């Protein structure tokens, strides 16, 4: 593990954003989408276009990164895209593959969040919500 001083200096804002994102994710259905990492699925966009590809990442703001994508634009034309980043605001639906167990996926995502948080809170790790008084 890196010395804490170095970690604090270099991680800074990213840690705060991660904490914030974990809180947002934990309190919303986006945890389900985050559990789709590694699955191939279809994302329908607000403008009627859709993208089918491998989910690389979904963040707390529902921004979705897909790889090896077949993109169907709203005129019906297809295009292949190597990497695609869809802004959360533009997502209408995310198809959940049939084989995905929704409850298990959400539980395992929440467990991951809690593991990260407990690690951060114990021992010498950075404590989340440090300074928050009752």
């Amino acid at each position: 593990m890196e010395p804490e001083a170095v970690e604090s200096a270099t991680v800074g804002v990213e840690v705060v954003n991660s904490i914030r994102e974990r809180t947002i994710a934990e309190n919303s259905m986006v945890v389900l989408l985050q559990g789709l990492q590694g699955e191939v699925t279809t994302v329908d966009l607000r403008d009627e276009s859709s993208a089918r590809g491998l989910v690389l990442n979904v963040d707390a703001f529902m921004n979705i990164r897909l790889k090896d994508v077949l993109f169907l634009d709203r005129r019906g034309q297809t295009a292949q895209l190597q990497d695609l980043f869809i802004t959360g605001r533009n997502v209408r639906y995310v198809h959940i593959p049939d084989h995905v167990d929704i409850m298990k996926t959400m539980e395992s995502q929440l467990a991951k969040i809690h593991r990260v948080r407990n690690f951060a809170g114990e021992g010498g790790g950075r404590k989340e919500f440090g300074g928050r008084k009752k």
Partner: protein
Amino acid sequence: MVLVRNLRPPTEGVRHEEANTTAVLSGQQLGCGTLYVAETRLSWFDGSGMGFSLEYPSISLHAISRDVSAYPEEHLYVMVNGKLEKAAEEEDDDGSDSSNGDEEEVITEIRFVPRDKASLESMFSAMCECQALHPDPDDEDSDNDFEGEEYNVEEADGMEVDAAVAEAGQFEDADVEH
């Protein structure tokens, strides 16, 4: 979101700068210039100072296209919510292409074609990072309450103490992480 003249390229927070990049706006070639992927906005300027800037919230998606059957050159594809108008023309909301009623959103397609195709991944990643810095402020549906009362990690951890019990200087010998 207009074409402007004499705007300066961003100097701060530029995550990626790509010279020799052609911009194609709604199918129209704008010539060769430099793309600036900055934290505040995405900009492109040609040699004469003409260019445009895009605000990240207006960008619906971006992608790397290597499918030469769809477009003859590998490029960074950006879909913008709304219309980009030349500064000289008036912005016309009842534009001829979008006469399909209120439901159809107007979009603008932009392709950034770098001479160096190997840069596409860095350009894409830089845009992902910058886009993530601009979460949707209008998002009312999700529960983004950072200070939510339901979040009681302190009780779970057992590390926080009641204000009544805390002694001054109680934690002075603890590791300071901030």
